[in-house]
C-alpha cells in the first residue's frame, strides 16, 4: 500500500521564532489587528509504501525523530492518507 504523509515541523512553543514574530508584526501593520501570534514552520510530503496504516505511522514517526525534526528545538505532527492508483 502507498501512503502520503503530510508532515508539519514547527519550533517548540518555548523557542522564540523570529520569523513568526516578524510576520505577525507585518500582518498587524497591514491592518490585521486580530493576529495574536504567528509561528513559521516547514511542511514536508513523504510518499512511502507500508503494509498498513499502523506500520506507515510508525515509520514516519521514526523519520521525524531521526531526521525531519530536531526534537531539541522542534515539534512535529503529521497526517497519513492512503493513496489509490
Amino acid at each position: 500500500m502507498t501512503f502520503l504523509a503530510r508532515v508539519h515541523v514547527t519550533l517548540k512553543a518555548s523557542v522564540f521564532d523570529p520569523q513568526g514574530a516578524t510576520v505577525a508584526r507585518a500582518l498587524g501593520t497591514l491592518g490585521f489587528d486580530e493576529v495574536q501570534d504567528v509561528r513559521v514552520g516547514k511542511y514536508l510530503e513523504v510518499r512511502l509504501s507500508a503494509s498498513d496504516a499502523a506500520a506507515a505511522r510508525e515509520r514516519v514517526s521514526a523519520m521525524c525523530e531521526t531526521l525531519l525534526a530536531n526534537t531539541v528545538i522542534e515539534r512535529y505532527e503529521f497526517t497519513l492518507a492512503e493513496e489509490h492508483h
Partner: protein
Amino acid sequence: MKFAVIVFPGSNCDEDAVRAIQQVLDEPAELVWHQSGSVDGYDAVIIPGGFAYGDYLRAGAIARFAPVMSAVRAHAQAGRPVLGICNGFQVLTEVALLPGALLANNHLQFRCDIVKLRVETTRTPFTADYQMGQEIRLPIAHAQGSYYADDATLQDLREHDQIVFRYVGENPNGSLDNIAGIVNRQRNVMGMMPHPERAVHPRLGSSDGAAIFTSLLHAWKEAVYA
C-alpha cells in the same frame, strides 16, 4: 600532531583551518573528504565552517549522516579532541556530541563582524593557553548562531563548567546566556560560532584565535610525553 579537517560539500572554511594550523603550529593538517570512513592516525579533528550539504532541512542535519561522522564520533568517544567551528558547531549539536541547538539569529540577519568574547574556562585542551576571564576578539559570520538549550541542559552546562566563551557587550545573535562556545562533559569536544582560524595573524584583524591551536598542541604533547 596531525590534524584532520573534514570537508563536506558546502564547507568553505576548510582551507582556512588547514592554513591556520600550519602557520600557527607548523604541524601537518590534511583535508578529509566526508565520504571517508576513517580518521585513524589523526590526533585531532576539525569540523570547519560553511554550509555542509547546503544546510538543507537544517544546518548540520544532513552532514550528521555522512560516512565520516561515524569515525568522528568514535574519535570523540575515545577522548580525542574534536573542534567544531560555526557550521561545525551546528553539526556537532545535530550529532548530539554537544547538547542544545543553534537557532536562526534573533534579528534574522546574517552577521559578519569581529566580536568581543570572554574566555570563561581554561580547563579545556582548547583554551588552556588563554587567561581565565581574558577578553579576546574573533570574527563571526553566521545566520544561525543563536545557541539554545532547555533550562535543565543550561543549568548542567553551568554546573560543569562547560560554557567556554561568552559574548561581551552586544550579543550578536540572541544566544542564551550570551553563549558563544561550549565543551562536552568529557571536555574533548568543543563547538563555537566565532572563527579562530580567521584570527591567527595581526594582519587578519586579530591573532586571538591562535591560542586555541597552541592549546591543542600543548595538551597533545603533555598527553604524549607525560
